[in-house]
């Protein structure tokens, strides 16, 4: 029997399961799968810094954090000259991409961001103070600012991405990568890999790492809007590594059901962006594959080695 820490509900109702054809709906996801994530797990994934620490402890590649500033005295002591020439400054509790500055170049008297705006040292400090004061956090809670490695998207994605950074979402259950997609920012999504905002979700065949079908706004598409680039058949570089990292994430975090967000960095390869304890269901549409039956197929498996998990996944899930 499974060694899940969290018992499934003893009774549940679904009179229409035979009409569902293996689709995972939100009620089943919450009751069967998300419920396997404990409250502590949920708290962990909500904190980007803690997640990163955990991943680093377990030798899982993630964007490097150069420094954190959690109060004003830390800010006054902080030596900006130690920062690399390009980096990203982010609020830990930020939402909706607010409060993020992407610095691409360092000059003697300041920094240049990706849009070409110049930030003096004073501007930078002011921005950090605003972050600390909770300007960018939900509900205005006190926040921490951190400096992170600036991701450079693997160049092979270039034809598919309008601007911004594409990422890969892998659903992992029982340590096995079950379903994956890549989220491609579009003009409409303003360069964000956010399906709600109009990014394209392209399904990936677990076995081959090639893109299959794609959807935007919940509807199937074949080409990237505006550019007309054909989506199907794009080979994700370092695919096995991506799957291995995803599996590792679940093993080390202990989350029962997790969506792992990975970015392929030009130099560093797969880097874990964040873990998601309530991954969305739109991935089924992007892949044109139902998730429920896949989850049920791995339910009984007990594989604790990431490499073996990747092998099993590739055998089990061939699109």
């Amino acid at each position, binding site marked *: 029997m499974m060694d899940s820490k969290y018992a499934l509900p003893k009774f549940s109702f679904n009179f229409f399961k035979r009409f569902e054809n293996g689709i995972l709906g939100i009620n089943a996801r919450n009751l069967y799968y998300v419920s396997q994530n404990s409250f502590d797990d949920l708290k962990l994934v909500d904190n980007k810094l803690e997640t990163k620490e955990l991943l680093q402890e377990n030798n899982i590649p993630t964007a490097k954090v150069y420094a954190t500033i959690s109060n004003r005295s830390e800010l006054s002591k902080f030596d900006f000259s130690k920062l690399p020439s390009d980096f990203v400054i982010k609020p830990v509790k930020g939402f909706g991409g607010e409060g993020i500055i992407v610095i691409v170049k360092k000059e003697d008297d300041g920094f240049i961001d990706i849009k070409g705006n110049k930030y003096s040292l004073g501007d930078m400090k002011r921005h950090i103070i605003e972050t600390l004061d909770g300007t960018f956090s939900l*509900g205005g809670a006190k926040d921490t600012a951190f400096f992170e490695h600036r991701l450079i998207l693997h160049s092979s994605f270039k034809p598919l991405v309008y601007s911004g950074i594409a990422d890969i979402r892998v659903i992992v259950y029982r340590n096995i990568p079950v379903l994956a997609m890549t989220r491609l920012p579009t003009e409409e999504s303003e360069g964000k890999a956010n399906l709600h905002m109009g990014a394209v979700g392209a399904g990936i065949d677990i076995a081959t790492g090639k893109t299959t079908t794609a959807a935007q706004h919940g509807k199937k598409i074949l080409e990237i809007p505006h550019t007309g680039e054909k989506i199907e058949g794009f080979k994700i570089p370092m695919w096995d590594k991506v799957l291995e990292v995803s599996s590792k994430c679940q093993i080390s975090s202990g989350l029962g059901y997790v969506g792992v967000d990975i970015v392929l960095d030009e130099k560093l390869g797969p880097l874990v962006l964040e873990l998601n304890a309530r991954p969305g269901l739109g991935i089924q*549409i992007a892949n044109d594959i139902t998730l429920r039956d896949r989850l049920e197929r791995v339910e009984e498996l007990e594989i604790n080695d990431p490499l073996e998990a990747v092998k099993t996944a590739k055998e089990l899930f061939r699109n």
Partner: protein
Amino acid sequence: MDKKLFTSLLLLSLIISLSVAVLACEDDSDCDEGEYCDNGDCIADDEPEEEPDCVDDSDCAEGEYCDEGECLPDEEEEEANETEELLDCEDDGDCDEGEYCDEGECLPDEEEEESEEESDEPEEEPDCENDEDCDDWELCEDGECVLEEEPKEETEVVVEEEPQEVIVEEPPEEFICQNDEDCDDDELCEDGECVEIELEEVEALLYDDEFFIRKGSPFLVDAYDSDFDEDLDSIVWDFGDGVIMNGSEVQHIYNTSGVYTLTLRIFNEDYESSTTARVVVYKSLMTLVVDGKTSETELNQIENLALSYGIMLESISLPVNYFQSDYLAREIYAKKLAEHEDAIISSSKIIIKTDGFSGLIALSQFSRDQEINLKSKQIFFLSDHISDSLAKVASYIAPILDAKDLVLTSNSNLAAIFALGESKDLEKLGSKYTVLDSEANESPFNIASSFIGYLAFSGISLNTLILLLMLPVAATIVVFFRQIIGIQTFGVFAPSLIAISLLATGLWYGLLIFFVLLGLGAFLRYQLKNLKLLGASKISVVLIFVTILMLLLLWAGLTFGVSEIISVTTFPMLIMAFMIERFVSVESERGIKEAITLVSGTLALSVICYFVMSWNLLQMFMLAYPSVIVALFVLNVFFGRWTGMTLFEYRRFKQLR
């Protein structure tokens, strides 16, 4: 932008502090003597008003008098003009010899020598007998010649005396008649002469065209609104029951109930006029309470039916406004009933014929608010669907009303109720009726409902209880729509709470307020983004603006007479502010589309909850069987363990199946 704000604030505070510093004085004590404080400046005080030379004449030198604080010499000519106020004399003794006192002024007597003599003993030797003895400008009065400008009182006395002389002096020389009897029949005695009567046109008019009289009580009526001459014209009343009376003011007692035609006829030889009025003679007075479900013609039919039984029906039509909820309506109904308090008090029976139990609740609210004792009255609640829950709810209301009887019966029994008249014997009603005891139901098996009954009896308004009991219903509905249908909302609370707000405001005004507040709030919230305030103060600032907007809405409600807007309280306002915050955060995280989806989902569910919560039958059911809440609990457990796809997901994943 924030810098600008800060600078302007700083400037403002600077200006305020400077203006305070510049003030030389705050009150006169801050200034030198001889100066006074005016708008913060010390001003030399050279105006004499402050220190008057004198208060009264004693402060002045002799030969001077005090006038408005100044001493003025007595000799001045102007003095004479001003003396009207300063009395030189009160009677002649105050004046010099040779002068007399007139209206407080010493006036010289006639400068002729005669006057000197007269002034000594004027009463013994009258200097005139009539006006001719006096000068042109004088009148003779009491033997004295007096100037024409005399006090009015005295002239009045003169006027009074004059007519006595006139009467005596002017007796008609040709004496024909002293009164009408001295003349022929068609003549009148006028100024002692017999004059032929000129008959004038008459017009019969009554002050009312309908009279309601209880059988056996005196009916007093007069013709004083008519145009007639009491002496010349004949006034005839026909009461319609065979009784005919004469006179301008008559009294009659009807012995049989029914509708009579009262005819007033006024006539003389030349002219004739008549008018009629309806006289409704009733055995008994009853009050009928109906709502908009009973049409005008239906109401007329009922009134006529009642009349045929000799029942006078005072009908109270409760206004129906589809824009407002039942909860609001019941409060309005209670006020409407209060307007007819007199009729209700004098009625022996009160009949309520409303859709659902609103009329009954309104009556209980009314009797409680107005402290009306209904002990002697029988109350009938007419309904074609007398369910157990209605009976149950009525059993809560019975002890509150504390009437002689509270009877539930069907509409078809209306005539039977009228037939009862003053009789209290319900047996005559026939078969179908339920009498509810005015003592509270004490069933140990239904603790919950006796508890609700106790609360209602102890003064908690039934409206409040219903609202409270409907809240779990609303929440369950929200859960159903979220779990089974798949509508996305801002949590479970928001739709239930907004639904309750809508019940307070009515649907349309509630939605209007919702959109106005949300639109403005969201707009403001985006503007505030640039201000870079901390989250908590952002919310507070939005709340401040929401408050200002609410005040404006209240003003608009008053100006345009929309009471629904006025009934919006802080509670829905806070819900709105909360929604605004959620809206903005969802918008920035998941885009405007998602945010709008959530808002519309929340609103749609709120409206659904509104309709369910205003469903009369359900309200009655929840009130009657409050233990149903336990069943709701079970239902929620079921929904909470429902793992099936939502209806919306079937559509979303259509292509996968």
